[in-house]
């Protein structure tokens, strides 16, 4: 079965420094790290202490609210440091890598397993965190049966990866992963594909294809769900990223926890932007050594894309979920009279007060300058232009700021996650921090409604 969806609103921002279709394998990094902050809404309970030896697949911490949700080590090593922040919050668990062999699970044939057995394997092996749920974009709740599972095989964010290329050697494991996910849900997994692509995803069996056409954020799962089968109050929908479908597939085909992560190192500060195969939590310097960075300027390192990623130090580590490491120049410079209309047209703009559309063919050079200061909500209508859902974004943001839970529910908070507001952050004339506001709104929802 296949369905077509056309997204009309949104915008693609064409940036310089897209990763070349070149796949390099990174040497295992000396140290790697797990960051509890990667799992929104999870409070970690440590199961190891500094100096402990962990093998690949051995649990490092579990969720406070559910000890069955395990977070395991992506490679073998010795716990080197547990880095804590304010109020002793755990920031990073840094592990010194070793050669110890990984943990083995004995897993039976998939077609002989029922849902409970499959769930048990996913939970005990530490593969559960690969599955996220809506509402809220938090880890899936093992107690519920979701309405549907979505896998988006493409991303439309600036400089984001081509999963077709990235997973070209993992077709079989992808199919096994889909088969596993199909066990967890009553309807076949929804596999959304870019309507203009023709790759191996078309040959995946037992899925419901959704062909999607349109600009960013068409690749965001929220947008796809909203236009395909919107989430209602009380419903639960799961989401898995393509490479994690492969990781789940590998777990079932090999019996070992798989933490494969192929990272596209991209951005205008990268000398040889390319795809590098490594594992979750790898040290960023192990990748930048291969890709080469222009160090004459001050750079920002972003785990993820420029719209919704998280900044990280150049000595930091790759996050759990992202396939993209973007490196762009910092923008701490002044621009004289830069606020005049049609000034500095090299800066990309969705507004017609700039001629930037003339300069975008080869991609824009961007930096992290705010290009203005934060102001009250004034301009209206600009958010709707980049928000392809039947939701009033400004009204939802205001409801979140006011902490009005009833209104947030009614205006669609269950259907969005912060990343859907990335373009709004970008396009906002008043420099409204929309993603932050939505994140706080969701935190309030989790606290008050659950």
């Amino acid at each position, binding site marked *: 079965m296949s369905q077509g969806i056309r997204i009309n609103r949104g915008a693609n921002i064409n940036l310089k420094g897209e990763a070349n279709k070149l796949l390099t394998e990174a040497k295992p990094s000396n140290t790697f790290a797990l960051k509890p902050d990667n799992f929104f809404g999870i409070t970690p309970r440590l199961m190891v202490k500094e100096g402990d030896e962990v093998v690949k697949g051995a649990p490092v911490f579990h969720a406070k609210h559910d000890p069955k949700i395990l977070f395991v080590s992506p490679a073998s090593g010795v716990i080197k440091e547990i880095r804590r922040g304010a109020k002793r919050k755990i920031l990073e668990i840094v592990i010194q890598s070793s050669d110890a062999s990984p943990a083995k699970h004995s897993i039976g044939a998939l077609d002989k397993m029922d849902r409970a057995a499959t769930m048990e394997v996913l939970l005990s092996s530490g593969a559960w965190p690969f599955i996220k749920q809506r509402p809220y974009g938090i880890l899936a709740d093992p107690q519920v049966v979701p309405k549907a599972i979505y896998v988006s095989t493409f991303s439309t964010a600036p400089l984001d990866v081509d999963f077709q290329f990235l997973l070209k050697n993992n077709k079989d494991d992808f199919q096994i992963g889909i088969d596993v996910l199909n066990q967890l849900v009553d309807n076949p997994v929804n596999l959304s594909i870019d309507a203009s692509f023709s790759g191996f995803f078309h040959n995946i069996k037992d899925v419901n294809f959704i062909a999607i056409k349109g600009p960013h954020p068409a690749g965001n799962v929220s947008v796809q769900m909203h236009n395909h089968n919107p989430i209602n109050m009380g419903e639960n929908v799961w989401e898995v990223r393509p490479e994690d479908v492969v990781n789940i597939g590998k777990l079932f085909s090999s019996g070992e926890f798989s933490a494969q992560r192929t990272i596209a190192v991209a951005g205008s500060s990268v000398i040889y932007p390319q795809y590098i195969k490594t594992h979750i939590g790898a040290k960023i310097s192990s990748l930048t050594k291969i890709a080469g960075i222009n160090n004459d300027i001050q750079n920002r390192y972003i785990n993820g894309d420029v719209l919704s990623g998280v900044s990280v130090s150049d000595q930091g580590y790759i996050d759990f979920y992202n396939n993209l490491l973007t490196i762009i120049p910092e923008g701490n410079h002044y621009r*004289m009279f830069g*606020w005049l209309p049609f000034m500095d047209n090299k800066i990309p703009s969705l*507004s017609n*007060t700039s001629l930037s559309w003339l300069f975008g063919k080869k991609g824009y050079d961007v930096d992290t300058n705010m290009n203005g200061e934060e102001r009250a909500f004034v301009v*209206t209508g600009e958010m709707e232009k980049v928000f392809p859902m039947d939701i009033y974004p400004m009204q939802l943001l205001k409801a979140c700021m006011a902490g009005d839970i009833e209104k947030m529910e009614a205006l669609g908070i269950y259907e969005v996650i912060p990343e859907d507001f990335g373009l709004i952050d*970008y396009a906002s004339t008043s420099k409204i921090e929309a993603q932050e506001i939505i994140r706080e709104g969701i935190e309030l929802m989790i606290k008050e409604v659950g």
Partner: protein
Amino acid sequence: MNFLRRKLDDLKRPFGKGQKWERYAPAINAFDTFLFVPNHTTKTGAHIRDAVDLKRTMVTVIIALMPALIYGIYNTGYQYYSQTGEAFTFLDAFIHGSWKIIPMIIVSYVVGLTIEFIFAVYRGHEVNEGYLVTGLLIPMIMPVDIPLWMVAVSVAFAVLIAKEAFGGTGMNILNPALTARAFAFFAYPTYMSGNKVWVSEASSMDGISGETILGTLAAGGNVNYSFFEMFQGSIPGSIAETSAFFVLIGAIILIATGVGSWRIMLGGVIGAAVVGLLFNFWGANALMSFSWVNHLVVGGFAFGLVFMATDPVSGAQTNKGKWIYGLLIGVFCILIRVFNPAYPEGVMLAILLMNVFAPTIDHYVVQGNISKRKKRWVAALKTA
């Protein structure tokens, strides 16, 4: 540029965090950010940002106002000289108008910005750019001979009561510029209406009088202007409202840059045209039979619709709401013109009225979205 930047950084040092003039930082920042877009980088949220900001948006509106303002200055002189019968050149007319209007603009900016700066320092937020537009709009919609102190009082009233009392830029319910005009209109009616205020010096020189077209019609008089004169704007009226042509240029700038809402403008034109046409069919008096096309180009309708109704803060905020809001402004404007001879021009009151109702319109539009979602929830529960 670097030299200037260094000088500014030196100048700003005493306003820094923990320094003795920290409280007054918003004031110096306003000047600094006028010269330079600051070096702030993104901290949370998206790492890259659009080149557009509120300053750029507001400056675009000011640029769009320029054609109407320049023509308004010329027309002030033109009306004066054509009544006195003196021979005059374009430059004479322009200089006469400048002497009248530039002091009003200066008074409006000095008074308004002073209040804005005081509130920015008092509240500890940056100076918002909104007043750059409001401060220019206020003199543009006043009669030319209004005393400067009345401009000052109206500005102070508008900024204090219409804006800061509600929390400043972005929070106000009424359009501040129209509030200033409405205040002057009701506080000093002899300076704001009648047949002696629309042409410069009319009140002090016997030979000069000038009634607006709508005023003449309301008083039952005959109009001797051609459609072209009304469209071009060589007629008596508030300073910059008379020329539909130059307002149209402004409208094109606003729509092309996406700064002004075309939905509101088009809605307003449709609303006014339809009601005007209906009255033409009725035709019970001079105002009713005044052609609907003429209704669109005389008085402040075009100016109000393009520059005041499209104020995003006081107008409707949803796209559907903008249509309804614009349409109703057009409808009420013509209704007030035709049915209420005490107010020959209806656009000011029509916009202020709809400013008050804009949140209600939005409420129902958003409520429509909410009930759609809730119906979907109920349907999902039934099938589950």
